[in-house]
């Protein structure tokens, strides 16, 4: 099913007399939440949260929230943006309420000069570690920008912030990530 179907392009449903209104909505929702959309949502959550179990939970929560508000969705053509905003908020919620964040300073246990480290692996490791140090919003912006390839205006919409704010946060996030991989690049040169 296309994500951008309009109201007039819904799947066939049983006559109104045969099903309850919510059952019609259920058919509609089943059609919208196809595997492709679920996988895309799960991937986005997994990248933001860096935890696949958490991502599964977050996706389920987002689906439950969306279903609970289904009657407020007036235009299915806006579904993707609407649902992605719920999903991102769910991920941010989980990150904000995480009580303990485990961080390990990059230079504590990684010797980039060690010959067994391949530069690409080192870069990924550095990014892994730098990414989890970003704020929840920065994580989301990086994923929406570089994985989802969303323009900044849409990223700002997903997060409910001004476009300028989104840009400045992306700038700071990129600086943090670049600072993390610089030593790797220098060590490999």
């Amino acid at each position: 099913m296309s994500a951008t179907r309009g109201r007039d392009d819904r799947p066939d449903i049983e006559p109104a007399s045969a099903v309850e209104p919510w059952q019609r909505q259920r058919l509609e929702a089943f059609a919208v939440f196809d595997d492709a959309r679920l996988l895309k949502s799960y991937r986005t959550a997994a990248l933001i949260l860096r935890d696949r179990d958490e991502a599964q939970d977050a996706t389920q929560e987002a689906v439950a929230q969306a279903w609970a508000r289904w009657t407020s969705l007036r235009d299915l053509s806006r579904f993707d943006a609407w649902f992605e905003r719920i999903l991102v908020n769910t991920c941010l919620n989980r990150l904000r309420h995480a009580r303990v964040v485990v961080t390990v300073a990059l230079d504590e246990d990684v010797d980039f000069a060690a010959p067994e480290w391949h530069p690409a692996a080192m870069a990924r490791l550095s990014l892994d570690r730098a990414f989890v140090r970003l704020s929840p919003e920065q994580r989301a912006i990086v994923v929406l920008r570089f994985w989802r390839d969303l323009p900044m205006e849409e990223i700002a919409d997903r997060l409910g912030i001004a476009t300028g704010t989104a840009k400045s946060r992306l700038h700071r996030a990129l600086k943090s990530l670049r600072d993390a991989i610089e030593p790797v690049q220098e060590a490999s040169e």
Partner: protein
Amino acid sequence: MTSRQPDDERDIRDWLSDSVPRTLPPGLRTSLERILSEPPAAASAGKWSRTRRSVASTRTFMRLAAVLAVLGIVGGLALLRSSSPYTASPSATATATATATESPNPSNPSVVPSPTGTAQATRVAGSSWTLVDRALPLLVPGDEWLTPPCPVFARPGGGFVAFVSTARREGTLSGNALSAPAPSAAATPAGSGETEVFTSPDGMSWTMVSTLPTPDATVADMVEAAGAFVAVGWAGLEPPLGGAAEIWTSMDLRTWSAADVSRPEAAPAQHVVYGPAGFLVWGVGNSEAFPYDFWISKDGLNWQPVTPSGLPQGMALFMGGIGILPGGYTIYDSATVWQSADAEHWARAWAYTGPGASPKLEGDPFVALGPAFAASSGGFVSFGRSGNVSGGPMPGPEHILTWASADGIRWSPGKTNSFGVNLAFASGSDGFVAAGAQPAADDTSGTPWGKLAAWRTSDGQTWTPVADLPTVGSTNPSAAVEVLGVVSDGRHIVIVCLDASGSTPATGMLRSGNLRLVVGP
């Protein structure tokens, strides 16, 4: 490395692409089918039956909310006993007076439904606790799954104030989770959207005295000081999905003014205390640019934003509470204490350095301060937590760690206890009370609802179960309660429970919204 920037972005894209999951987890489609098996209004209930880890996340937030609420009340109780401007008036707009009856069966107080809209109090024979039912209107949280803030606050001079939002009432009423039916629509008009203010001298009889001037308002905290009542919270959805900061002030609980404290990226106001610089309202910020959102006011009417200095940025996520000590505003963050006399300039006053002070890796032990109370024997106690870092964002098993302090700043860890879940604490007339929902013994899902349970301690170290509590909720997952909080005015202890039904076609919603108060000495 400026010349490498385009490659850096490519590296980031490659890294994201390499680390993205390739396939859909099989359980996700199953979960979707389960979620969609119920009408849309019931869907939020399904989230509780997902995994233990996700429920733990909610438990943690609820615990944090309880910590914040209780600590503020304690601060008020300890230091703000100066004012009591409100006098009940016979012209109150509505009154719900509980009529106490006794039940001979301690195991089943036999709550018999009273006429619609009439509050009812039931005391089990031989018990010192009274179950108060329907003294307050339905409290139906938004479509969030987070436990709502405790709506009842103790007054330093005695008595209680409650703020109950009637917003989103329409269409969210469910069947009754316990034996008594939920109030009918006639008793609780649908969707008025107002937050009603109630007062009570004893936790049992409640009088509605006013409504807040903001639609769909949720009060997260309230303090009574300097001749004013200052309530803080948000309007609309619970944070972080929505919720602009709101501050309401009243001199008599009848007439309220709302302060305009909205600003870009502002956080929902979550706590208020009164200290040397006046009222301080604090919210957890939504971004690194606003890790905290502080507002301060001398009179409770004119508010100024404060940009605090000296606080670590990441603290907003882990803050254990804020209170007032002779040194000024005092923040308990994990096992560190921060103080400020003016709410703007902060300094670290103390940091625990023993085992568990600096967890870094999965499995590392950690300790944390919790809500702090003045001890009757002098000094302070804090009911914090200890455990091991789970490695991910979700916590692992935790224990209650009692801390002791002579000055409220320097703390020593004491005894560790393991009882109850989702505990809230209050200081009573002869010690401390902990209350929480106790899931069935075979319930390993981590659900935050269950049968009400409470414990008492005189020294903060050794806890004894309260044996004569009325039965509120049961071990049946479709008939249980969540404990929103426990408050004490020094004479009465009020445990605030919310009916929490499971997700069934009959009940539909996770919570019925019925507030049940258990009042004891």
